[in-house]
């Protein structure tokens, strides 16, 4: 019995992989070729080496004694079409790849050393116009996203400097007004900022996340000074304000410098969009992000805008590959923006502490409704 259960578990996992990768797409994916690949210490065995153009699933089993990798490489012997890495001994992993007609190489690289073992492949049939269009659209999406990140980081530097100068001048009323708006560009590109493991903690660490001995700096340190707790808190001295704003501005400029030459793969964009909604679900919906200021809805709005940008850039590809997902995402983004719109005020948004339990639940439910289909985006753009 235990054995049977184990087998069915594998069945489920393979099935779910197939489902997420071809997320409710028509029959083409389901009927795609299934190829068994066995990688040993000295051999790369494929159950078939000739297939019609379309989606092909390579199930790679490592029967060698060291880690292996599997690549699909173009006829030139250099350009990687797709790859699966890190397959430990006795493990197996699926690679689902869309191939147009032409000659390719399948390559197993046991031990991940040398050139690997090549097996020539023939894919029959022409180039599907659909995938050529997709390829171009994905390239454009990457360029557009890089431009978006540049724009946001430019705005971020500008608003951060204004905020810092106001806070430094002791004009706290105005600083409180500028604070949530200045953070919005940061929140729109948060996954990019977080990818810099050193800058993120210096700029966006919450008090609750401090490690022993770690110095608390960044936005939330200043947030606490602007919205101090009623008891047990000593305001920053002017010298401390100088130091706090310097760290904020310097590190924001450093972020700006680092994003200048960044490029983004479609899968990174899609993962980033999913992470933005994770941020909303774990931090903003619960009011943990802006614990002192209560300006969580500004961040919420910006996170969703950042995710919406990614979707907008990738939308034509998603429409081609999974029209149902595309329309679901469009309508869920619209829903959540409509909901946020209800809480807009003349100066921004309602503060978290003024939300009722029912309203908080309504937000949580809208986040789930959007995040669930959004989590399928990566699989759709990477196949």
């Amino acid at each position: 019995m235990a054995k049977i259960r184990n087998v069915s578990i594998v069945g489920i996992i393979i099935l779910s992989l197939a489902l997420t990768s071809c997320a409710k797409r028509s029959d083409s994916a389901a009927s795609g070729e299934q190829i068994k690949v066995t990688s040993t210490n000295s051999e790369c065995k494929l159950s078939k080496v000739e297939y019609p153009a379309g989606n092909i699933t390579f199930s790679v089993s490592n029967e060698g004694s060291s880690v292996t990798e599997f690549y699909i490489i173009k006829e030139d012997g250099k350009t990687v079409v797709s790859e699966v890495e890190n397959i430990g001994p006795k493990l197996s992993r699926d690679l689902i790849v869309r191939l147009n007609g032409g000659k390719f190489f399948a390559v197993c690289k046991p031990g991940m050393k040398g050139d690997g073992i090549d097996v020539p492949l023939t894919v029959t049939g022409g180039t599907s116009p659909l995938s050529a269009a997709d390829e171009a659209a994905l390239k454009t999406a990457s360029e557009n996203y890089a431009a978006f990140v540049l724009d946001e980081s430019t705005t971020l530097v500008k608003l951060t400097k204004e905020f810092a100068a106001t806070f430094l001048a002791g004009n706290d009323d105005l600083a409180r007004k500028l604070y949530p708006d200045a953070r919005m560009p940061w929140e729109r590109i948060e996954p990019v900022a977080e990818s810099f493991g050193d800058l993120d903690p210096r700029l966006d660490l919450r008090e609750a996340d401090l490690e022993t001995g770690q110095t608390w700096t960044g936005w939330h340190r200043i947030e606490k000074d602007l919205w101090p707790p009623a008891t047990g808190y000593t305001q920053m001295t002017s010298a401390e304000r100088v130091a706090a704003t310097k760290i904020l501005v310097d590190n924001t400029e450093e972020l700006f410098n680092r994003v200048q030459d960044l490029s983004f793969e479609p899968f990174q964009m899609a993962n980033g969009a999913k992470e933005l909604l994770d941020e909303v679900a774990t931090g903003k919906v619960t009011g943990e992000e802006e614990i002192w200021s209560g300006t969580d809805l500004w961040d919420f709005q910006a996170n969703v805008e950042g995710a919406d940008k990614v979707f907008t850039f990738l939308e034509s590809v998603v429409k081609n590959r999974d029209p149902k997902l595309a329309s679901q995402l469009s309508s869920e983004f619209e829903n959540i923006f409509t909901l946020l719109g209800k809480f807009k005020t003349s100066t921004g948004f309602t503060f978290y502490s003024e939300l009722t339990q029912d309203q908080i639940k309504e937000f949580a439910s809208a986040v789930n409704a959007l995040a669930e289909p959004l989590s399928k985006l990566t699989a759709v753009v990477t196949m």
Partner: protein
Amino acid sequence: MDSISRRNLIKGIAATGALLGAGAVGGRTLLHDESPESLVPFFGKHQSGITTPHQRNLRFVSLDLSTTKKDDVVELLKRWTLLASTLTAGSVESKQASYDSPPVDTGEVLGSASSNLSITFGFGPTLFQSEDGVDRFGISGQSPKDLVQLPALPRDQIIPGASHGDLCIQVCADDPQVSFHASRNLIREAFGIADLRWAQAGFLGKFAEASHTTTPRNLLGFKDGTANPKTSVAAEMDADIWIDDPSEPQWLQGGAYLAVRKIKNIVETWDRTSLREQENIIGRTKSFGAPLSGGDEFTEIDLKMKNGKGEFVVPEKSHVRIAHPDNNAGRKMLRRGFNYDDGSDFVGRTSAGLFFMAYQKSLSKNFIPVLQSLASQDALNEYISHIGTGVFAIPSGVLSRNDFIGQQLF
């Protein structure tokens, strides 16, 4: 104390038509269609419920003493010892003084199978010194050297009402009604001396075959406990779990330290995470629990293995790597956690996760360093939140009904 087997009691009712007649067919030894394997012996050098094969259900209770008299504490521990020995033998208290007094036993397990019930007692730091520094029972000199509250850690969201306690009882059984019943009657015995501080129910899945041969899965869907020391190998338990240390008080020799953490899983975001990322976060495959460095579930993990890009195959921040004994001076602990389900939270998210329990020789050498590394580095932190905490000293076992739990302490 009169007690009867649960099965016999039902027979007794059938035969005499009256509860009061049940005592007549009593006796702790007669067990009908319950195989002896479904009983966990209570008496022994070590307390049961630690190396005992993982049952399917937990009810963990923490109590605070309301008395200031040492004699009351001794009285409670005597009562608990007797009741625990009766219940774990598959019996219930049966001596009914009068038809007009409340039933001695609450009754919900009458007719139930014994279900491998085990009951394990522990003492929290506040038994020896209260939070405001008072030695209520004159026993602070006997406090174990490692029995101090765990340090506050980044990202902790500890709820005091689900943490700590003067005394704890771990009740485990293969039937949730049996574990509930035992904890309920133990709490009842304590009224006037100790009050319930918090309680936590837990569960594990039922496997297709003999459940104790397969590693349980947590609610993240991964096998949890693969690398545990082997409870069937006494030498491993002596090496890593049981205290045998002259610098510790006598009553703790043959005992252990228990650390508990209530760890909420943010299941909504976890369930939207790709299989690739889930496996990279844990460091094992989801299907079979094999380390990403290859092999099957029980293949030794290769932390040094790198891929073609020079990155570790078992990622640097993966849970298994950070918790691995090789990264923690070889220290091991016996994890004996249960999944929990508390319904929903205030924003309408599922409120569920892992009620983590680990037994070990030393907290400062075993548990705390691992907890600290995990708190600061574990990739899993994005999907979990520690909401409950506690440490307890588990005294050695009792050998007979003439002795009581923690006797050498008083």
